[in-house]
C-alpha cells in the first residue's frame, strides 16, 4: 500500500501545480515509512517540504496555505502525533467553509498512518478515527488495500474540504497487490463490497478488512456466506450500503481496532437499529479494541480483533 500512496502522491504533484507535501522527514528521507521516497528529488524541496517538529504549527500553516489557494498534503509521522494538531484540525480546519457561509473550502489532506499490529512502541498504534469523525467539517477516509489507497487519496486531494486520510500501516507492506498504472479518483463516500454473501455482513475498514475476509473464508467452510463490506468512508458512513447489507443479510458484525466506547462500530450499530430494525435478525455485534491503551506489542495480537473473535461474534449472530 505504501507504494500505491507514493505513486498517487507523485501523480497529484505532477498534475496539480498547487499541490505540495509537508511533514517531518518526508524529504530526502522519504518519510519514516518511505511513502514519499524519491518525491523531493523529483519535485524539488518547494513541493516536498521537511518541517520542524511542530504538528500544530505545520498543520496550522497548511490551513493558511490552503486558504490562499495551495493544496497541501500533510503527513503526520505516526498515529498519536496528530494530537498536538488536534486544536488546529477540529477548531480551525473543519470550520473554515462554515465560516465562509459555504463559499470557500480548504483543500487540505492530512495523511495519518495509524493502527496496531506492527510491533511498534507505545503511542505508535492508536486508531483515532472516531475522534475526527465526531468533529464537524472533516471527512475521514480509510483505505484497506493499495488500489483503494491510490484512488481515495486522489479523490481526497480533489474534494475541496479537509480530509483526514488514515493509512493502516499494518497494510503498508502487506502482499504486493497489482495496482493500475495511473489512479483515477475514487468515490470518497462509498463503501465497497469486497466479498459477496447473503447470510451475514462483516463490516470493517483499514487493516480489519483483511481479518474480516479471513473470517469470511472460515465461515464459508461452515456454509455461511458472509458479505464483507469495507467502509472506506468513516465520515460520512455509506448509509445506503449499510442499510442494504442489513436488509440483505439481517445479521451484521462490525470490526474495529479502536476502543469500543463511542467508536465507529457503535455508530454503525446505532444506525442499523434505528433505520433497519425491521430487517435485523440479530443485534449488530461489535468486535473492537478494548477501552484501554493499545498494549505494548507482545500483547497486541491478543488485544486486536482477530479471526477467532470475529468468528465468535459471527456465530453468535448466526445462532441468534
Amino acid at each position, binding site marked *: 500500500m505504501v507504494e500505491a500512496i507514493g505513486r498517487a502522491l507523485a501523480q497529484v504533484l505532477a498534475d496539480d501545480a498547487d499541490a505540495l507535501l509537508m511533514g517531518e522527514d518526508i524529504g530526502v528521507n522519504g518519510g519514516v515509512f518511505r511513502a514519499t521516497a524519491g518525491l523531493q528529488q523529483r519535485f524539488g524541496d518547494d513541493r516536498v517540504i521537511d518541517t520542524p517538529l*511542530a504538528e500544530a504549527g505545520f498543520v496550522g500553516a497548511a490551513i493558511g496555505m490552503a486558504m490562499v489557494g495551495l493544496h497541501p498534503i500533510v503527513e503526520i509521522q505516526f498515529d498519536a502525533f496528530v494530537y498536538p494538531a488536534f486544536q488546529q484540525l477540529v477548531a480551525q480546519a473543519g470550520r473554515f467553509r*462554515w465560516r465562509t*457561509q459555504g463559499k470557500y473550502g480548504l483543500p487540505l489532506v492530512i495523511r495519518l498512518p495509524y493502527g496496531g499490529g506492527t510491533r511498534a512502541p507505545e503511542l505508535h498504534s492508536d486508531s483515532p478515527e472516531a475522534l475526527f469523525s465526531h468533529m464537524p467539517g472533516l471527512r475521514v477516509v480509510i483505505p484497506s488495500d493499495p488500489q483503494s489507497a491510490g484512488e481515495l487519496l486522489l479523490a481526497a486531494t480533489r474534494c475541496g474540504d479537509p480530509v483526514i486520510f488514515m493509512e493502516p500501516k499494518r497494510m503498508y507492506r502487506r502482499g504486493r497487490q497489482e495496482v493500475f498504472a495511473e489512479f483515477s479518483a475514487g468515490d470518497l463516500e462509498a463503501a465497497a463490497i469486497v466479498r459477496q454473501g447473503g447470510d451475514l455482513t462483516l463490516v470493517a475498514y483499514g487493516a480489519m478488512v483483511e481479518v474480516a475476509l479471513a473470517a469470511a473464508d472460515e465461515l464459508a467452510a461452515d456454509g455461511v456466506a458472509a458479505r464483507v463490506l469495507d467502509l472506506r468512508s468513516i465520515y460520512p458512513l455509506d448509509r445506503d450500503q449499510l442499510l442494504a447489507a442489513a436488509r440483505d443479510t439481517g445479521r451484521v458484525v462490525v470490526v474495529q481496532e479502536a476502543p469500543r466506547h463511542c467508536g465507529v462500530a457503535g455508530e454503525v450499530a446505532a444506525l442499523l437499529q434505528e433505520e433497519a430494525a425491521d430487517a435485523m435478525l440479530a443485534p449488530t455485534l461489535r468486535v473492537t479494541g478494548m477501552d484501554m491503551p493499545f498494549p505494548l506489542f507482545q500483547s497486541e495480537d491478543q488485544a486486536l480483533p482477530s479471526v477467532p473473535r470475529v468468528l465468535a461474534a459471527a456465530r453468535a449472530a448466526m445462532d441468534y
Partner: protein
Amino acid sequence: MRADGTGTSPAVPAGAPGGALMGGARTVLGLGREDRREHLRGLPSGLAIRLYSAMTHLRAFDERAVILQRQGVIGTYPTYFGEEAVQAASVLALEDRDWLFPTYRQTAVVTLRDCPSVVPLLLWRGHPGGWHDVMRYRVAPICIPVATNYPHAVGAAWGARLRHEGWVALAYGGDGSTSAGDFHEACNLAAVVQAPVIFLVTNNQWAISTPIVKQTRVPRLAEKAAAYGMPGVRVDSFDVFACYEVIQEAAERARRGGGPTLVEAVGYRLGPHGTADEPSVYRDPRADLLWAPMEPLGRTEAAVVEAGVAAPEQLLELRSRAFQELRDVGDRLGELPLPSVEELADSVHRDTPWPLRPERLYEPSWARLEQTPPWS
C-alpha cells in the same frame, strides 16, 4: 531621537504611560513638538487624514457595538477601545493584496477593506451573515482560540513566497497569546522558512484578569524574537504614526525576502476585556485613570491639528459621519433574515453529506421521509 526623525520614548517609571514599560517603543507622538510636526508634514499626502479617518471609523464601530450589546441587540462583545491606532495603522501600512489574520479583538479591521460594518456586527449578533467574504477582502475569519491564527498567517505567507507573489501576511494577537504553543510554533516555522509575515502582538498588559507579569518573565515581548532569529521591534500602540512606520518597515523587509518580524505594540487595555468583564475586580481603577490620556483618537487629532495637516472642522466632520453611519447600521441590524438550520447545515461541506441533508437533520429522521418508517 533617531536620524530618521522618529524617536524612542525615554525610560520613565514603570506602570505609568510612557514609563519603563514603554521603554524602547518607537514613538512619533512622543517626540518634541517641532519634530512631531515635521514628521506629520513629511507623511505622504493625505495619509494622516486617512489614518485618522480609519481610527474614527473603528471607534465609531466599537462604541456602537458596546451600545448594541447593552441594548441586547448583540451578545458578548470584545471591545477594542484604545487599540484603534495600532489596528488602523496595520491595515493602512499594508497593501490591499496583503492578507490579514485577525482575532476576536480585531473584529472591525475588515471594514477598513471596505467590508460593510454590518457584517462584523452580525457576527456578534450570532448571525452567520457576520462571516465576511474571506477571499474578497483577503482577511481570514476571526480566530477565537488564542494564537491559532499565527500558524495560518505563516502558511499563507509561506505560500506567497513559494509562488513568488510578493504579498505579505499579518497576524494579530495579544500579550497572552505569546504564552501559547501555537505562537511559538508559528514564529519558529516562519523564521526557518523566512515567511513574509508580521506578528503584530498588542501588549495591552492584560489577558482578561491576568497581568503581563503572570504571563511571562520577559514583559518586553519584542525580546522574544531573538529566540527565533527574527527582528523584534517595540512601538507605542497608541501612536498611529509610529505603528504605521514600524509595520510598513516590517512589510517591506518581508517583501524583500527578509522574513518575519515580531512587532510588539505596547500600551494598556483601556477598557474591559469585553462587555461581560468587570476590571475593577482585579485591577486598580487608578491605573486606568493614569493611562486614560493615552487614548489614541484624541492624541492623533491634537497632533494632526497641531501640524496643520487638517482643520478641526474637517476632523469633526469625519467623526460625525462615521458615528452617524454606525448608528444607521446599528438600527438596521435586526433586519437581515436568518438562514434556516437546513441552510447552515448545507454550508459545512462542498458536497453535503447525508447526515446534513435537510430530511435527516431532525429526528426521528425517517419520520420526515416521504416513505413510511422502515418497520411499518
